[in-house]
């Protein structure tokens, strides 16, 4: 455990000694904040317009019109940014030849992977927590439901955790950071959109819906916690970490 902690510390020092983590977090807060502002403004215009229509105004709901789309959009921003956060994790070790230290220190591959994974989760957490000040601002003005907001946050954290696990795997495949980022972004995007197929064909409908990020995220963004969605994200992350482990084990024979 101490070894894992030593790696977490090292990775965080590297993250925060270069601009990468700052830029990614700042962009995330900026873009999601912008979206949130637009959605809240739009909602207030709608509310004014609905003022003399009691039926419509009773249907207006901040959770449904602001928070749910906000989390869906934040998820897309994570899809764009997280591959950049994870691209250096193993690729850069190889390029800088520090892997020759890392893999000759008394560390197991599991410790190395967990250390790197946890460090990236910490950065993700920082990014997400940084959105709290504005995202909770409407609570001072009106009374949205709290529970769906919290599940939305849980949703983007789990989604991010799954993205990071896959990004870690992509980074273990190459010593080129760009290749790692493009690969993880491409595959994650494909997995996001794969449910589109269910619109045009019933082939493997259930399966495609199951492996698509989108269909699982939709529930959480709407405030519906379904265990199967949580299980999906956690198993996806687990598969990503396991594939990374397999690559590291195989690499030992080939370097």
């Amino acid at each position, binding site marked *: 455990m101490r070894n894992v902690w030593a790696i977490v510390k*090292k990775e965080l020092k590297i993250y925060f000694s270069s601009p990468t983590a700052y830029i990614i977090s700042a962009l995330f807060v900026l873009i999601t904040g912008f979206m949130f502002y637009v959605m809240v403004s739009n909602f207030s215009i709608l509310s004014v317009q609905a003022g003399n229509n009691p039926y419509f105004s009773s249907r207006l709901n901040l959770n449904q019109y602001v928070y749910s789309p906000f989390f869906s959009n934040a998820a897309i921003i994570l899809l764009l940014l997280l591959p950049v956060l994870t691209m250096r994790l193993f690729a850069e070790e190889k390029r800088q*030849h520090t892997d020759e230290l890392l893999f000759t220190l*008394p*560390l197991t591959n599991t410790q190395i992977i967990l250390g790197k994974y946890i460090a990236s989760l910490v950065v993700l957490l920082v990014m997400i927590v940084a959105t709290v000040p504005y995202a909770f601002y409407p609570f001072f003005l009106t009374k949205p439901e709290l529970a769906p907001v919290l599940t939305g946050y849980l949703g983007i954290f789990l989604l991010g955790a799954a993205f990071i696990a896959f990004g870690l795997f992509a980074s273990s495949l190459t010593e080129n950071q760009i290749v790692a980022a493009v690969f993880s972004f491409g595959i994650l995007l494909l997995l996001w959109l794969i449910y589109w197929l269910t619109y045009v064909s019933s082939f493997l409908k259930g399966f495609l819906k199951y492996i698509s990020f989108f269909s699982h995220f939709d529930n959480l963004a709407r405030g519906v916690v379904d265990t199967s969605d949580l299980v999906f994200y956690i198993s996806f992350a687990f598969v990503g970490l396991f594939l990374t482990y397999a690559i590291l084990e195989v690499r030992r024979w080939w*370097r």
Partner: protein
Amino acid sequence: MIRTENLTKFYGEIRAVYRLNMEVPEGTILGFLGPNGAGKTTTMRMLTGYTTPSFGKAEIVGIEIQKEPIKAKRLIGYLPEVPPLYPELKVRSFLEFVGQVKGLRGKELKNRIEEVVEKTGLEKVADRLIRNISKGYRQRVGIAQAILADPKVLILDEPTIGLDPKEIVEIRQLIKSLAGKRTVILSTHILQEVTSICDTIAIINEGRLIEFGKIEEIEKKYGSASLEEIYISAISKEVKA
């Protein structure tokens, strides 16, 4: 003590190291010689557990590195060919990371870091980012991390490469002073380095071990030739398949 048994590494069809057998007793400073591409680095990588041999085995103080990698790696200090440094870290926090992983804690860790910083002459740069220090200093940080946890076995791949003459002398003295109970393997192209620090040499060519033994014994075998002559005649021998 380091022992290898039929240590072999293939990269596809290419035979990097083939059936390498040697036994390096405790306290030896072994000079590992051979032309570029002879298999020196690959051998060192197998000894340190970075690469897995195709077959054969390597033992570090009686512990087989493939079977108990963590236990064996705790006993090894390793400086690869390219010093493995994180440019984003400060020298001191880099050494902290290595020390923590090697099991040093709290005060002991601090004291050991101070000790190796002094020994390797890093006082001036200890609080600077590795990115900003010169090549010579980087090499020293590489050596500092290798000796940090007082390892029983020290494996140095061309430790004096890229250093200026004064630094070379200092590092050689340092390596010499580290011997004693430790076993040191160092690879080099500078034969003079071997005569000044090592007591034993191994000459390797095309992945095969050609000569191995105490310097005096090998010199005797070659009729008191100089090390240069021994080296040239050893590597020009036909390598048996």
